[in-house]
């Protein structure tokens, strides 16, 4: 796909009908957590959207985030979105290496000054002037500062780039910090998770591609469309929590009956992410559906937040009290789920239209 082509032009050249394009837009709406009614608006916007330049920097990371995005079998919705962006630098995926690779980054920065999207995975070590991680002799710290300077917006992919992640965990020997602790004058979108859900990464890119803006964010700079609810809010096991039915061990009767995993350490009540509905492995399941508590990987400092199998402190969550209240409200619970979904969709549509990149620049 040429840079001056729109996605609609590109698909038409591939022999894809308008109906096929609308199907793609319907799937994109679902991916972005928008209602199906938004399909026409997405089609209209994508008909005009040009291909944005993307520079992807990997710092202190395990490559799990890149794996998450690229390991789905082709051709998927994710790969179509990747076709629609110009990935000008990604040192794991690009063929060039050494000085040729760095030249590609500098060229992309010059050609698309002020317009390119910078994606970062991995945290940045700042102790001892950042010497603990370098690429082509340049510290991660310096490379981030240089590349961020002319970026339109930054997407911090994964918990390391968003919140410091595992390198930031106690005792943090390299002084690892997230992108937002270093860059203060650019719009930043945090897409945490260890790794993040592929469809959430592409959902954010699709939003930018479609509307040319960044979505509405929460106080931790996460897109509300995907991180607006807790895992607990959207968990299919929630009714068991409301009824006070908990698995006490991994092999007891409650575990076999699929009861709530709260007492086995589930961090769902304090974790904001879309796993419960977007799911993993092509929509197969998510950890709780496989019988394992949520680890809370999309929240800051999840690695240091106590044992994975220790229940969340009951200081904030009084299970018995909440369960009793929920039982009283139980009669309306069925209707509430349905209404909740519709409310979620209409508020998601609102969120996707709200904030422009310019508005976020200070």
């Amino acid at each position, binding site marked *: 796909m040429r840079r001056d082509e729109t996605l609609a032009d590109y698909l038409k050249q591939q022999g894809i009908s308008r109906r096929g394009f*609308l199907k793609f837009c319907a799937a994109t709406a679902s991916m972005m*957590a928008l209602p*199906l009614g938004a399909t026409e608006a997405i089609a209209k916007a994508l008909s005009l959207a040009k291909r944005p330049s993307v520079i992807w920097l990997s710092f202190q990371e395990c490559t799990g985030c890149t794996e998450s995005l690229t390991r789905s079998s082709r051709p*998927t919705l994710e790969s179509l979105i990747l076709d629609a962006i110009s990935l000008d630098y990604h040192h794991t995926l690009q063929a060039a290496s050494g000085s040729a690779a760095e030249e590609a980054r500098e060229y992309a920065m010059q050609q698309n000054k002020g317009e390119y999207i910078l994606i970062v995975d991995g945290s940045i070590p700042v102790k001892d002037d950042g010497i603990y991680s370098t690429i082509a002799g340049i510290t991660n710290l310096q490379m981030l500062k240089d590349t961020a300077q002319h970026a339109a917006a930054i997407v911090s992919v994964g918990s390391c780039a968003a919140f410091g992640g595992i390198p930031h965990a106690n005792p943090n020997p390299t002084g690892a910090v997230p992108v937002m602790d270093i860059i203060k004058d650019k719009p930043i979108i945090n897409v945490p998770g260890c790794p993040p859900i592929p469809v959430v990464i592409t959902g954010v890119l699709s939003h930018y591609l479609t509307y040319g803006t960044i979505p509405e964010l929460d106080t931790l700079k996460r897109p509300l469309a995907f991180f607006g609810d807790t895992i607990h809010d959207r968990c299919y096991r929630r009714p068991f929590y409301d009824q006070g039915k908990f698995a006490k061990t991994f092999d007891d009767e409650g575990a076999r009956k*699929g*009861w709530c995993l709260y007492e086995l350490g589930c961090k769902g009540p304090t974790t904001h992410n879309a796993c419960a509905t977007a799911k993993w492995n092509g929509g197969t399941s998510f950890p709780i559906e496989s019988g394992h508590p949520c680890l809370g990987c999309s929240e800051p400092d999840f690695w240091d937040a106590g044992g994975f199998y220790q229940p969340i402190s009951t200081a904030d969550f009084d299970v018995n009290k909440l369960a009793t209240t929920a039982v009283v409200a139980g009669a309306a*619970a069925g209707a509430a789920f349905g209404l909740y979904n519709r409310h979620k969709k209409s508020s998601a549509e609102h969120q996707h239209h709200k904030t422009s990149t310019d508005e976020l620049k200070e």
Partner: protein
Amino acid sequence: MASLSDISVTLEQRPTEQLIAVLNEIDSLLKELIHSDQQGTIDLRSLPLFPGDYDMLKQLLAEGEVSATLQAMGPSTIQETRVPGVWWVTHFNQDDEKIAEYIEITRLPSLLKTTDEDLKDAPEGLRNLIEQVINN
């Protein structure tokens, strides 16, 4: 060693609150279609369904009179359920992986209609066909 399918898993409480909620939502969207001509959709991938709910919902709504297949960037199946006006629409990619799934409450899902853009190109395509026939 026992295989995964040998491990007995008992599903609690049937039907679940989630399933009843979806059915009630379909009911309310159907009424909106009848009284205000307002079309509605439920994105099945946005719902926190209990394992087994999906199959039960599909079994319950079952297949109605109309069934269509769209071949564009992979297949899509568009099936009217046995409740008139309630359609089950599933989109797949070229690898037959499901990429979106909706219940649409409408007289006719919009994807079945020929789009203006494709219609505009249709006469030229037909002329080419006529020329082929004449030249052969």
